[in-house]
């Protein structure tokens, strides 16, 4: 039973379709068998054993993904609000779309084009992300577009670009992780956030490889580790420099690699000398003996990887922190070589592709810079507009949200696939800003907390109902294929953009057939860093995904240093895609990787007498992001029904609270309350809250929007709080 097709009207209901999970960046392969049940679950999820990333395995989120397809859970008709403060009511598409378009036009006329804004998401397909960027720049002609991916990978992306000249989450397929000698995993709890990836770590360990996990909590992932370094929140940068120091002191620098393939080592070495082991111990709380052990393990194997996730990245020094971890790879020659390198574990389903095709304020498709005249020319030509008419760079996600409804801010916002009421930092303030808009138009599959504030809500199709490509954490472009049709009046996001563009005077240029959009994306990305021009739906199906860059022909192949395919293909032979980057050279102009000149600095907000504890935030196994989908999935929500505050028994003892009792957590930005979860697996100076919930237990009420100067990443992972028992 190999037949895999996209759903067509009249196709037999039991024709199984190969597709991918709607959740995280692994994009596990799965097979959907339509059930024909329109009242219950319309598809059955079955194993797709041959897809290489997950080999058939799924986590609870994947297994239960069909629940959100059920009719009772989701939006099935457009909704509009007749007056501020009034209720949402059902409406027809024409009315809803007319209202949305009129709101954008009015705001644009009254306040200027930049008073209309677009906020996208890292869960959108490449086609949607691409078309959303085009919609902003061509239909709305606004510079104000950014997306929630800014809150995910932007720090790693900036550090990646600076060091290697190119930003792709992993420079190698996940399968390589199983064969490396040591993995240093920094601030990732992948055993909870992407469980099917654990197998690669286990295989590595079974083969004699070592796992080092850096986390202020002894998470399920840290439990797997050969060595757990429980560094204080916000000190990963010091830790990385301390390890580099010991690498230097121990004579483990790969001098030949440093000399032949890097630049900037001198300054990095000096910075490391200012972070000697005893000082790093004082900054991080990690004893020198553990620092030494970590270096022994890391340099003791012939190959090694450093993988970071949100822990080190969601800091106001996230870019420098990632740069410091990359330095460790460069100094030890653990980069640009087989089974070695630095990688970022992307979070959202299309966190990778979502940042390549133009929904980021400063980017155009193909990972092009919006300030680069050549890039503007190329993309403008594809779009059939004048390059001079393309807006310049806009502002970053938090800055966009922070100024909503203000004099210089956005007055009418088009929001797609994001739930900032729950997921943005300083969320109470952001909610106030959303309410201050003249108009909020939201496309979503469910009535999220943010959609509930909207003036116009447009119900959109979801993963099993539409086709489109995603790019997973490996840089593998994969294809989601529709298995069923959406219920009720639900339309695809592409269709919605098509209709809105037409109402804004752009009848053409916004196709809604995904393959047609992909064809245009290929053209727009051609010659860019994230070159998709050689990728087709057909190839993706045949090859279990294609790794970018993949130009249309092999002509440029030899000239492009980023690519390291085994044999240089001749023109006319299709480019094989690029599973492994940088093996011959890095993607910088001179082919050398750059050391970052970085030093530790404190978090924007350190504990003090009034707010004596660190708060760090994160995820739990059964929930995903703002919980919009998983909280509506009974099997998942039953396992993790609400927020909690994790704290150490000694802290609990001090404030007189027992497990399960309600505690109030207060920061300079607000207060949240949730039951205490007392566990000795967390540092006694730190409390942890998962961020999947709205309301009283909303972790992001507390978080600090201090931004990284380069990536504009907010400091989700560390702020100062006090914790009290409720009276």
């Amino acid at each position: 039973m190999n037949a895999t097709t996209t759903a067509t009207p009249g196709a037999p209901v039991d024709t199984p379709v190969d597709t991918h999970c709607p959740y995280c960046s692994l994009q596990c392969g799965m097979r959907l068998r339509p059930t024909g049940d329109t009242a219950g679950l319309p598809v059955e999820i079955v194993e797709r054993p041959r897809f290489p990333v997950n080999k058939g395995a799924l986590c609870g989120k994947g297994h239960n993904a069909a629940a959100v397809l059920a009719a009772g859970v989701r939006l099935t008709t457009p909704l509009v609000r007749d007056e501020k403060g009034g209720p949402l009511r059902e409406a027809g598409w024409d009315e809803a779309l007319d209202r949305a378009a009129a709101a954008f036009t009015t705001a644009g006329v009254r306040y200027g084009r930049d008073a209309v804004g677009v906020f996208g998401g890292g869960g959108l397909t490449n086609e949607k992300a691409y078309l959303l960027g085009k919609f902003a720049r061509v239909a709305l002609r606004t510079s104000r577009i950014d997306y929630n991916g800014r809150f995910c990978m932007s720090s790693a992306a900036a550090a990646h670009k600076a060091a290697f000249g190119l930003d792709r989450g992993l420079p190698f397929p996940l399968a390589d992780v199983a064969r490396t000698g040591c993995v240093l995993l920094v601030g990732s709890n992948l055993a909870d956030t992407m469980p099917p990836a654990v197998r690669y770590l286990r295989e590595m360990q079974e083969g004699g490889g070592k796992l080092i996990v850096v986390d202020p909590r002894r998470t399920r992932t840290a439990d797997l580790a050969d060595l757990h370094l429980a560094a204080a929140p916000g000190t990963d940068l010091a830790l990385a420099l301390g390890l580099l120091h010991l690498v230097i002191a121990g004579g483990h620098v790969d001098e030949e690699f440093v000399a032949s393939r890097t630049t900037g080592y001198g300054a990095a070495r000096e910075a490391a000398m200012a972070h000697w082991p005893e000082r790093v111990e004082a900054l991080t709380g990690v004893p020198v003996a553990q620092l030494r052990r970590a270096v022994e393990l890391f340099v003791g194997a012939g190959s090694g990887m450093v993988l970071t996730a949100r822990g080190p990245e969601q800091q106001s020094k996230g870019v420098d922190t990632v740069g410091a971890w990359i330095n460790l790879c460069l100094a030890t020659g653990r980069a640009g070589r087989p089974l070695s390198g630095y990688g970022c574990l992307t979070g959202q389903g299309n966190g990778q592709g979502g940042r390549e095709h133009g929904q980021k304020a400063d980017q155009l498709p193909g990972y092009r810079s919006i300030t680069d005249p050549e890039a503007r020319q190329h993309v403008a030509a594809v779009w059939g507009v004048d390059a001079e008419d393309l807006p310049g760079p806009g502002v970053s996600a938090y800055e966009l949200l922070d100024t909503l409804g203000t004099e210089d801010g956005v007055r009418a916002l088009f929001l797609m696939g994001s739930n900032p009421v729950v997921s943005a930092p300083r969320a109470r303030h952001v909610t106030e800003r959303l309410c201050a808009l003249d108009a909020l138009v939201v496309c979503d599959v469910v009535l999220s907390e943010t959609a509930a504030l909207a003036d116009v809500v447009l119900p959109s199709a979801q993963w099993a109902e539409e086709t489109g490509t995603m790019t997973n954490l490996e840089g593998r472009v994969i294809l989601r294929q529709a298995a069923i049709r959406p219920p009720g009046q639900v339309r695809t996001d592409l269709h919605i953009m098509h209709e809105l563009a037409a109402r804004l005077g752009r009848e053409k240029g916004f196709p809604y057939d995904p393959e047609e959009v992909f064809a245009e994306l290929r053209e727009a990305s051609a010659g860019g860093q994230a070159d998709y021009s050689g990728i087709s739906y057909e190839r993706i199906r045949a090859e279990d995904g294609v790794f970018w860059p993949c130009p249309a022909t092999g002509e440029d192949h030899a000239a492009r240093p980023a690519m390291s395919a085994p044999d240089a293909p001749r023109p006319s032979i299709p480019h094989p895609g690029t599973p492994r980057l940088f093996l011959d050279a890095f993607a910088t102009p001179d082919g050398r990787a750059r050391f970052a000149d970085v030093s530790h600095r404190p978090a924007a907000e350190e504990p003090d007498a009034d707010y004596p504890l660190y708060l760090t935030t994160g995820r739990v196994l059964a929930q995903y992001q703002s919980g919009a989908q998983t909280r509506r999935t009974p099997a998942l929500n039953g396992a993790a029904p609400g927020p909690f505050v994790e704290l150490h028994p000694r802290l609990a003892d001090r404030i007189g609270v027992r497990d399960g009792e309600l505690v109030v957590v207060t920061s300079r930005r607000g207060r949240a309350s949730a039951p205490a979860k007392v566990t000795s697996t967390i540092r006694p100076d730190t409390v942890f809250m998962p961020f999947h919930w709205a309301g009283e237990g909303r972790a992001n009420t507390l978080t600090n929007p201090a931004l990284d100067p380069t990536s504009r990443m907010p400091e989700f992972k560390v702020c100062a709080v006090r914790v009290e028992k409720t009276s």
Partner: protein
Amino acid sequence: MTVRTRVAVVGAGMAAARLARQTLSPLLPGTLDLTLYGHEPHAPYNRALLAGVLDGRYVPEALALPTGGATVRTGTEVVAVDTGARTLRTDLGESVPYDTLVLATGANPVLPPIRGLHATDGHGSPGRELKDGVHAFRTLADCVRLAEAARHTRRAVVVGGGVLGVSAARSLAALGIPVEVVHQAPHLMERHLDDEAGATVRRALEGMGAAVYTGNRARAIEGDTAVTGVRLANGHVLDCDLVVLACGVRPRTGLARAAGIEVRRGIVVDDTLATSAPGVYAIGDCTEHRGAVHGLTGPGWAQADVLAARLSGTDPDATYTGVHGVARLTAGALEVAAFGEVADTDGDALRLADGTRGAYGSYKKLVMRGDRLVGAILVGDLAAVGELTRTYERGEPLPSRPLDLFSPLEGAVL
């Protein structure tokens, strides 16, 4: 046209380098003219790692510290300061104007009152140079000379059993040199450790091949032109051809004193790191702040960070109110951390000793007053060092079972 502010820093040691890096890195290049004047021939380096140069773990050049692009005048001694005219004079006779002066003159090693330390001059009276084979252990140059001498040494004696002396003895022992430590106090590192901890360190040093004589004073260095031994107060002579002096340091305050700046034990600074003279600040080992003088890097760098925030404008209101110093020694496999009050004469104390742990056994002690931690010692097992120092520095109340502080995270592995 605006004239760039000229900041002159006297000294190019650790505090000076930190100040330069932290002041300049947030500023655009050329905003501020910052010059370090160092009398040593080397660019700023990490003094905390000198024992590692001695035992060969670091090559001297690898110790260089970042200075944020400051101008560094090595081998240039500032010999006078005119705080009224705001000029300084170097040993080359230059007169250099400044807007802001920072004294980071550091500390000098204390030379103990021992006969025969110095070589005799042509007339048979003691000269200024240390006798051949007698070494101070403060600067990189000292260390390089010592490392060179150590290559031909048969036996060495370290005078002083504080942090520096223990560290030097361990490095010499690691080079395979028979080494003996002479220490005046009844136990090693008595400024930071109680007797039991001192005994643990002693056992560790002995395990590394060093001999330790506590409660003994070196009276004289034997030998006419070169060292042949160290005579102790009890009359014994320890044969050796190398002597390392590790008897502590004293703030270098001569320049400040001569300039009329208030000096007590160190150069007196307030919470803004200002001295008694307008436009003159001081940081690091040369200072005395709220009566405290210490030779530890932590407080010196905290001072540098505060002054840098003020000079760069990133936090013009930053103040330094003092930090707790933590004494920290890593000597091969021996790790020691100690802070605060370590004697348990009037407070409650808890001790845990485990002779089987690690290479040399472990010893841990908490000193408490009421529900607060006022001091602690960790020898040989530092898993709880972060937890203890935080509890102490933040003044957190002790847990109901204070010994729990020794437990790191559940199941943590080392």
